[in-house]
């Protein structure tokens, strides 16, 4: 069965329909880039996948959990689906190590020693082993974002969601974060990422989804979609972002 499967999912904020019937499957190991104009519903789609937003209609199964069923265990879902935000959202009162250990101990019920071992390994993986005892405000934006990725990966999620995670970074810090994502894609992590980096989408993602006005407007292999857009909306969007 697909890792993610959505059928006719509708999301409204009050009367405002933001997702207008999304049907979508994602298989294990896929790297899916989500592109589209501002306000097209990209973030909302990601936030629905780990139930940070509730949907009003349709059916949705993610990582083996029927999210739309009334008795779904949402905290269990979120422990299986990692998410990294544009604004890093590290816990400012905790060191890097304790940021990573927190959910391992509370959710995964690891001992402090086990959690510390995982934290060391994960923070090392994103190249920040020497920053374990630093506080978030002592790190650059790129470093904070890498810690946020490590914190999420430490939970051994079945898939990862990334929402414009390089958009708040100074240009010279974008590369170090994208390299971590590339490495993850190579390792076969299932991921869905909202991005404005078209080169990254083309070279690293297997598949591109173009969102337009709350719908999936085009969906296909990244090289094809970006080289040969079928709809005028995607043509216009690509022309605008690639100037």
């Amino acid at each position: 069965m697909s890792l993610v499967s959505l059928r006719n999912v509708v999301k409204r904020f009050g009367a405002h329909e933001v997702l207008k019937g999304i049907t979508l499957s994602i298989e294990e190991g896929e790297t899916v880039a989500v592109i589209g104009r501002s306000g097209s519903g990209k973030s909302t789609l990601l936030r629905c996948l780990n139930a940070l937003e509730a949907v009003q209609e349709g059916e949705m199964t993610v990582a083996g959990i029927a999210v739309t069923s009334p008795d779904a265990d949402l905290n269990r879902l979120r422990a299986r689906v990692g998410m990294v935000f544009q604004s890093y959202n590290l816990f400012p009162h905790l060191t890097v190590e304790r940021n990573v250990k927190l959910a391992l101990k509370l959710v995964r019920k690891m001992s402090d020693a086990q959690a510390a071992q995982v934290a060391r390994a994960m923070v090392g993986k994103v190249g920040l082993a020497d920053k374990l005892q630093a506080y978030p405000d002592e790190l650059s934006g790129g470093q904070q974002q890498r810690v946020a990725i490590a914190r999420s990966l430490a939970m051994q999620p079945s898939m990862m969601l990334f929402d414009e995670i390089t958009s708040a970074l100074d240009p010279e810090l974008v590369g170090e974060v994208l390299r971590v994502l590339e490495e993850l894609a190579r390792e076969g992590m299932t991921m869905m990422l909202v991005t404005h980096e078209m080169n990254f989408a083309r070279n690293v993602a297997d598949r591109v989804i173009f969102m337009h006005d709350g719908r999936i407007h085009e969906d296909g292999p990244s090289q094809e979609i970006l080289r040969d857009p079928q709809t005028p909306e995607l043509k216009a969007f690509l022309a605008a972002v690639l100037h």
Partner: protein
Amino acid sequence: MIRDFALADFGFLLMAARWTVLLSLAAALGGGVLGLAIAVLRIVPVAPLNWFAIGYINLIQGTPLLGQLFVLFFGLPLFGLSVDAWTAAVVALSLYSSAFLGEIWRGSLQAVPQRQWEAGAALGLTYRQRFSHVVLPQAVRISVAPTVGFLVQIVKNTSLTALIGFVELTRASQIMTAATFAPLTVYLAAAAIYFVLCFSLSWASQVLERRLHVAR
């Protein structure tokens, strides 16, 4: 009868300052517990409880502390409930503190960005875990400075209890002035003691803030 202000008299002021400290502590403790309850009543999604808390806060914040002291000390005996000066002082200062501390703490909780709740949720933490491990510790850090700032006000406001005859630092200074007829010396000494008390609090708050890694 009239004599000079001597070292022994300074000792007398210090002994009285003990009551200023004890009263402040009692008010901080009583006001803290009540204030926590007020903050919770103000936040829980139950409208009547919110209204009650808002009404209470407005009533207490909208009337002078001295008036509250008088009502408790002189008003209750009219209904056959006599209270001594210490009890009236502790109760009035606790009620007064609770309204302000409650608001300070509610503000601190709400000052923690929504994103922090979400970051906790995205890691699979339960609502209570998000509250106690992510939001509350940050709210506590945010609240240190305003809380201590308010406690400094409380230390100074204990002087109002002199007006219902409670012998703390200010009342003791009045007594001492009557005995020595040296008001300037006596009140300067009292002011110095107040200053040391309040300054220690502010200094402790700054140390605490540094230790706690208050988010900038």
